[in-house]
Each structure stands twice: as C-alpha cells, then as structure tokens.
C-alpha cells in the first residue's frame, strides 16, 4: 500500500490542488480509497483531513469501500433510460445477485450506475472497466459476463 501511494504521490506536485488527481490515481491502483491512505494523502498534500474526506465522498468516482475486480457501469443517460436502462439493473441482479452500488460476494464485479457514457447511439449501454457494450439484452449480457468470468 505504502509503495503504491508513494508512486502515486510522486506523479503529482505535492500541493492541495493535486488532491483529486491523487485520489483518482490511487483508486485506479487499489480500486478504492483506504482510510489510512486518505490520512497520508492529507498529510502529504497539506490538506485538512476533513477536506480530503469531503472530496472523497462528494465525487461519484470515489469509493471508500473495497470494490470488485471489474466495475460494471450502467449508463443512466436519457437515451438509455428511454430504451430501458432500468431493466439492465434488473438483469444484473438476476445474473450476479448484486444490486446497484453493490459488489458480488466473490469480489469479481461491482455494479454501479453512471450518468451518461456518451454512447447514446448504442443505448442501452454499459461499460465494464473501460470497455463499452451497446444494445444490451439478457442474452448479450450473459455472454459478456461469461467472457469476464472465463478470463480470470
């Protein structure tokens, strides 16, 4: 952990304005923001702990809870909404037994809703890590999830 944090800190200027990018890089490395790391970040950047916590809980991208290996983002943009994005959450619940915001028991997937992936022509769309999938239906979703399960 310490080493990861050092690497992240080394990439940014040690000043308060780097706070968001430090937290972003940290989350990318360890998939969430551990409490002890937040304390360290506060000390090193010279930002009050309260402010670090404020930022870490304000932005949707940050999680204080450990997350799964893969993050499934359900697009909740308008186009996806009118094309049935709500259903995707239901499908995922059927497939993974995890609701919006939850992580599967095997820590394989975290399911979350995001605002708009900007892939409105593919509605309804999801993004797994950085891969976007469009026109999601039950059969397709099952195929996609299987691919991720087989990989790991």
């Amino acid at each position, binding site marked *: 952990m310490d080493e990861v944090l050092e690497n992240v800190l080394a990439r940014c200027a040690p000043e308060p304005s780097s706070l*968001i990018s430090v*937290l972003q890089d940290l989350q990318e490395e360890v998939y969430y923001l551990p409490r002890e790391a937040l304390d360290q970040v506060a000390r090193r950047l010279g930002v009050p702990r309260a402010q670090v916590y404020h930022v870490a809980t304000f932005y949707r991208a940050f999680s204080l809870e450990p997350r799964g290996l893969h993050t499934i983002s359900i697009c909740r943009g308008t186009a996806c909404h*009118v094309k049935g994005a709500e259903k995707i959450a239901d499908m995922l*619940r059927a497939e993974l037994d995890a609701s919006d915001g939850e992580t599967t028991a095997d820590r394989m997937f975290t399911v979350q809703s995001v605002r*708009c992936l900007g892939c409105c022509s593919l509605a309804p769309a999801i993004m797994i890590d950085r891969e976007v999938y469009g026109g999601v239906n*039950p059969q397709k979703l099952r195929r996609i999830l299987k691919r991720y399960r087989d990989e790991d």
Partner: protein
Amino acid sequence: MKTSPISTPAQLAKLAASARKAFLAPKPKILVGAATCGLATGAGRVLDALREQTNGKLDGLRVLETGCIGACFLEPLVDVVMPGQARITYAHVTSEDDPGILDAMAEGKVYEKRAVGRIDAEPFLLDDVKKNYRRGKFAEDVRKVPSYEKVPFFAGQLHVAMRNCGYIDPSSIEDYIAKGGYSAAAKALTEMEPEQIIEEIKTSGLRGRGGGGFPTGRKWETARKAPGDVRYVICNADEGDPGAYMDRAIIEGDPHSVIEGMIIGSYAIGSHEGYVYVREEYPLAVKRLRLALRQAEEMGFLGDNIFGSGHRFRIRINRGAGAFVCGESTALMASLEGRVGEPRAKYIHTVESGLWAKPSCLNNVETWNNVPVIIARGAEWYASIGTEGSKGTKVFSLVGKVNRVGLVEVPMGMTLRQVIEDIGGGIENGGQFKAVQTGGPSGGCIPSEYLDSPVDFDELTKLGSMMGSGGMIVMDDRTCMVDVARYFLAFLKDESCGKCVPCREGTARMLEILDGICEGRGRPGDIDLLHELSEAIVDGSLCALGGSAPNPVLTTLKYFSEEYRAHIEDRRCPAKVCRALIRFAIDPDKCTGCAACVSACPEKAISGEKKEPHAIDQTKCVKCGVCVDACRFDAIEVKQGSETE
C-alpha cells in the same frame, strides 16, 4: 514522418504542403471509424483483421483509425479510398467482410454488399477547397453507390465542427496539418492583434455551445480587459448532459482542433496557461487528447514563443471525477483547484475572478473547435450560416427512439422536423412521435405541434426548453412523459451539490411527488404543489442546475397534462411504462414453453412445465420487463392496471 519543430508560419505552410501531398497521395487507403461508439460495435476486431490480412497485399496501403463521422447507426464503418475513384463508405462491417473488401480493392471494384454511400471529393473546409478523388469517369459500380448528398442522413448536414471527424487519423498531427490545421493559429498569432481577433469572434456571432449560448467574443473581451497579469483559458470537456456526446466525438476524432482554438483564445485574451477539464468516463478522449498535446508541444505550437510571436502558452489536462455539477463554470474551477465542485454566486463573473481568483475564460469543446474556422474563413463567412441570433452550425446528438441515431451537424435554423424526420428517418419500429427532449436536464420536452420550430438558441428557449449542449432525445408513444420528468428530477436530486437548500430539498420533494404519481399514489393537489416548488427552486438557487431544475417537469406539465391526469385520476400509465400501473401476462397461445424467460427473470417469478405455456406469479413480479426482451415469440404482453382481471 518525423518533423522538426515549427517556428514560423512559412515553415508551417511548407509542412502543410508536403503533409497534404502525402494525405492525398494516389495510394489505397482504408479508414476505420474507431471512436468509442465504433469500437463498442466491433471496429477493433475489423481493424485487427484488416491489418493482419493486408500484409503486403496492396501497394502503399494505409490503414488508419479515424473519428466518428456521425452515422452511429451504421457502425462499424469502414471507408475505402482507391486511387482515382470516389471514397466508398461501407456500413455494418464485420471482420468477415474484410477479405471481401480487400479483394474488391485489389480488383478496383466496389464491395457492393456493404456499400452505403460515396464521397466524391475530400473537403478542406479551412481553405475552402475540395479535392476530387476521382479522375476521369466513374466506374459503373461506383456510380451505383449514392453520393453523400443523396444519402438522407448526410443530405442537409453541414460539417464545420466535425470537419475532420471521419477524415483524419486523430493520432496524426500531420493529418491535421494537411487539412489546414494550425494555419489559423499561425495567422492569428503573427498577423492579427488580440483585439482584432476578439472583434472577429464578435462579428462571427459565435455563441457558447455548452449550454448558455453566451456570445463568445464578449466573454473574451471581458477576460482581456480584466485587471491582473495572470489569466487562464479553460476548456470545458465535462460533457455532462445525458444524451449529448458531440464533445467526446470531437476530442476523439479531432483533438487538435480544440487545442488550436485554445491557442488562439489564449493569445486574444493574454493568457499563458490553459486547462482542459475532461470527463473521466471518456478514457479514449483523454488518451487522444494527451497524445495531441504532446505532439503540439513537440511541434512548438505549445510552449514559449509560438510561431515566433513571443506568445507562450501551455495546456494541462484535469480529469473530472463524476460530478454533473462540475459542468457549471464556478464548480468546474473549484474542482480544478482540487476542491469539491460547489458553485458560488456569480456577482463577480469568472471572466473577472475565476480559477485561483484570476480572470478565467471558459468555453466548451465545440466552441473552441469553431474558433480556428472563424479565423481561417473569416467572421463574415461564418455569420452567413444560421439565423439572425444564432450563427454557424450546431452538432446535435440525435438519439432515442429514432431510426437513424448519430451525431448530426446542421446550420442553425433548420427545423426540428427536418432533423428528426429527414435526417433521422422518423420514429423506430413504426412508432408515433411524442416529444423531443433538448437541453439535457435543464431543458424540456417539445411536443409534435412545435416540430416546425427552428433550432436556434432563442426559439428553443421560447418553447420552455433550451439548446443546451445539443442533446436531442426523441421519444415515442411508448415513452411515459411523467416517467421522463421523474427521471430528470431523480438525476438532478442526485447531482445537486447540496449547497442551496431550495435545490437540495426542493428537488427531493418534487421527486417524492413524481414518484407518488408514477406509483399510482398521485393526489389532486400534486400538480399545484409541483408548480409552487418549481418557483421556489428557481428563485432560491445559485447556479443553473437549480435554476433550471424544474424545466423538465414544467414542460411536460405544460404539453402533456393529459398524461399526468391519467396517472393521478385514473391510476393509468398510457405508455405502459410506470411499473406500479402495469402488469405482465403470458399469452398461452403464443408461449412455447422454451423457458428463456424463466432464467432471465431476476425474481424467479415465472414457472411452468417444459414445452407448456408458462405463467407469471404476479406476487413476485417486479415488472422489469426483462422477460419481454428474453422472449423470442412475442408471447409476453404488457397490460394496463396492476391487478389481475
């Protein structure tokens, strides 16, 4: 091609000439649309297979990834240029089509199976020229492919902001320069005074493309005149409006156009430091922008003494962290400073006191992208496009229940009907048009009786909606307008930063009422209460998020009051969307007992004997409708009313 840094306009002109020669070289070229939407439909596989199979097959062949030309409904798109012929567009290409395309190229023929359109000339918008691909007569099979002017989706469009998307390799600065790139910056920095540039932008009539539609030239002028030595130039690439993705497409397809616009802007207002605040949800855009910045630095377009003018300017990238409110200028600047994105009161505008309390000039991606065109072609030319109050073109993302979804760039003043029917091809699956939602969560829903209104900043505002960043979400008779209003309220309630109580609590209360209406618990006074709350939220909020939060509710109340009444008085959802007011039933005559729905149902509410008609346990059913999608026999019906008959 390795190129040495450019320090004078003459050097740039020389490089442009050689880059253009290489760009137009009479050699075969394949362009694969590889923006996020293309990649998600399989463009990556097409590209890999093409590269594998082309090994040495065609002499001098160039295979390149290009941006999105806008026709997302045709993805994956592959375009082929053969020397002396037109450029042919192939749609819905899979890796299985690759050998066919390559064979056809080798024989100088068209791969007819996938051909949907042809472009006869390569446009160079900045230089106002078109270079014909074709020499001599068309081959018979080329002539059979309709030219873009005759393809309904492209006819009537005018690509200015998207001038390079789908034409160049976004990772090649030489391609951008071949298209006239950075010549506008060279002209601005070496031939024009800052005031002259500002005057030019003012005359062009360019208005902010991000939402507000504020005159760009006036913004620049105030920023230039603001006291102090340090000023910032900021690009808002935090494209948050759900249903709008033109900024992503522009950055992914033509990142240098945004950088060039910012360079010109920085010189005009006297700034040496720029920021791009880009959404983290757009990883490919971030990647392409990073590369473009590095290239621009290496070429000397960013750095000290740009084009020998003495002007210095650098750009940094900051990634957003998933907060919609950060699209608001003061919230965005707070986020750039590493703080939470809470807007502040704008008694003093950000052009006078913005980032780090310094004058800051913030424009959105599409606005910056328009700047080089205005400088290169002149304000007069730009102002000749569009309407009295809205000049130029606007990119719209035409999405939702429309046949041809994609990015559509049209001159301002075109009617909504032309965009939706002529370009978009009307409603999908033969449905009935109900409304078009514009302007994101701050906008509203426009019903069919106003379809002949022109797209124009002021006209859309008159209808109770707004231009916003250009999302155009088409809704049909299977879209419930109360549900749409509830959707936006839920969005805004979640995204309210919480600073102003009327916004934070008011949106929550409005959402409660709308939830009630959608769940069949609507009460007679609800509509009055929604109006009352709307007023309070508008009056009591600092920023535009709260100030325009009630718009989706107010416009749907205004134009679709029937639907609200059906929900409240009859406990009925005419569009059969609101879950509490509908039920699902299996038609025993159609059900084959294949059990596809059984495994799809998240609640395990469907059961039955193998090969016998199945049934839904209404007590378990949550009415998600997943079974409807899973059923291949169209056996599951949606019925009005929550009770079984």
